[in-house]
């Protein structure tokens, strides 16, 4: 599903975000991306989401070479990704329903179709019945689950999450991670950047460890 071959990202300032990273993730796999802050976890996810462009090497996602995805094709490519952020990036002046519906509206789905799918996604994250509320009236954990519902509402084959539990207490973090596991069980490829090492060790998924923009051997701190 995801293949990195000697991928490097050098910013215009000369700073290296990533230096020669190679790894492969199979379809349907779930993996955690770990490492200290500044190790390049976010950079790696942003390269996959085409929020930034790699400067060297090759990134192939779902059989598509990202270098060849330019212009308006970027938008169509992103429709096959679900991205979740630590700060959830919800639109605070829109209801929960409208926030979750956004990817479907953008893709031009019909109204009835949108309503059905948004309800299904909210049901999956346990927020059914909160469609009419505004995000500010929700707790941090609920806001993050709205963000997850938005990411999965158009059933993307790949989910990316950047520190999704960064602001949550251990119990809520466990809940959110279990949610990701459930999506993974129905075949979604999941890649989660996190520094919550204790939590993920208990879950027993693959760990991709980064240090100073390079892969570090797993299992060694």
């Amino acid at each position, binding site marked *: 599903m995801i293949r990195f071959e000697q991928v490097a990202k050098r910013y215009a300032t000369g700073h290296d975000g990533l230096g020669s990273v190679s790894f492969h993730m199979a*379809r*349907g796999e779930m993996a955690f991306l770990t490492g200290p802050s500044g190790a390049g976890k976010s950079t790696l996810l942003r390269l996959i*989401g085409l*929020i930034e462009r790699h400067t060297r090497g090759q990134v192939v*996602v*779902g*059989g*598509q070479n990202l270098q060849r995805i330019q212009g*308006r094709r970027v*938008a*169509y*490519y*992103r*429709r*096959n990704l679900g*991205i979740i952020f630590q700060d959830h*990036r919800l*639109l605070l002046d829109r209801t929960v329903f409208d926030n979750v519906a*956004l*990817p479907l509206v*953008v*893709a*031009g*789905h*019909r109204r*009835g*179709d949108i309503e059905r799918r948004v309800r299904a996604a909210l049901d999956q994250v346990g927020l059914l019945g909160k469609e009419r509320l505004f995000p500010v009236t929700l707790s941090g954990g609920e806001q993050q689950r709205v963000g997850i519902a*938005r990411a999965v509402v*158009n*059933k993307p*084959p*790949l989910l990316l999450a950047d520190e999704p539990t960064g602001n949550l207490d251990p119990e809520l973090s466990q809940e959110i991670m279990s949610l990701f596991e459930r999506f993974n069980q*129905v*075949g*979604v490829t999941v890649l989660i950047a996190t520094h919550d090492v204790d939590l993920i060790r208990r879950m027993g998924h693959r760990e991709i460890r980064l240090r100073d923009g390079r892969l570090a051997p797993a299992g060694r701190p």
Partner: protein
Amino acid sequence: MSRRPGHSASAGRGGGSRLTDPVSGWLLRHLQVLISTLGSLSRSPFNTLMTAAVVGIALALPSALYKLLENGEAVRRGLEGAAQISLFLHQEVNEARGRAFAAELTARSDLAAVHYISPDEALAEYQEMSGLTDVLEVMEHNPLPAVVVVIPVAEHAGVEAVRTLVEEFAAAAEVELAQFDQEWVRRLDGLTALFERGVVIIAALLGAAVLLIVGNTIRLTINTRRQEIEVAKLVGATDAFVRRPFLYTGLWFGILGSLLAWLLVALALELLSGPVNRLAALYYSDFRLLTVTLTDGLLVTAAGAGLGLVGSWIAVGRHLQEIQPS
């Protein structure tokens, strides 16, 4: 990226649940945005009206000037073909000699019409037109000379030909003064052309102002909705999708502004029509002030809509590219 097998069925259903006819789907999406942008404009009526009013005034000014120009043209057309020469006869020329002179002129082939106006007739006409009856009554005798009005045939109505005729008549013994009344019409033509050029320049400047007003308003709207644009792009919105509501907002500003301009000009002409028609009546003219027609209004609306669309297009083109998810 291919969808995973477990969801291929739902993906297929998803494809089927979208609008199958691409043309009507496209039309429906545009219509939805057109209406939803009007809806969001109506939710901030004060800001919308402010921008629409500025656009309206900027459009009303050249429209009103153009309308005045059109009225001037109408007056000018009424004067056409009136290439008449007035021959004022010497006071000592009596009526019999005057009429004989007029008869001589009637025989000429280069004159289409000759009309003798005796001093008494001239006085009666003057009294009627000026209303100065009392003043003229206290005068002991009629101060007005007899006048022979001649109208050259069409082929002699040119400026040079008329000038030759005027010189010839001026030399006649009976004539004190030969006056070509068309001179001021040509001056009016010159003034009209100047005014017309001025209107074009003002229209161009104010058109540019409308572009800037709409463009700036759209730029501000884009800035306040920056986060929304970023998130929309993040979940797969195309540039066209993001652009659409802003373009339609600009279109609405143009349309609302031009409707306001239409109203303003119609109102202004309505206010002018009373005095103008009274003035025309004083000149024995059946001239009526031309008011705003439906075509005029539709033209202004089309111009406003076009300017609004182009103005927002410029702003969107400049600022939407800069906003990328981070």
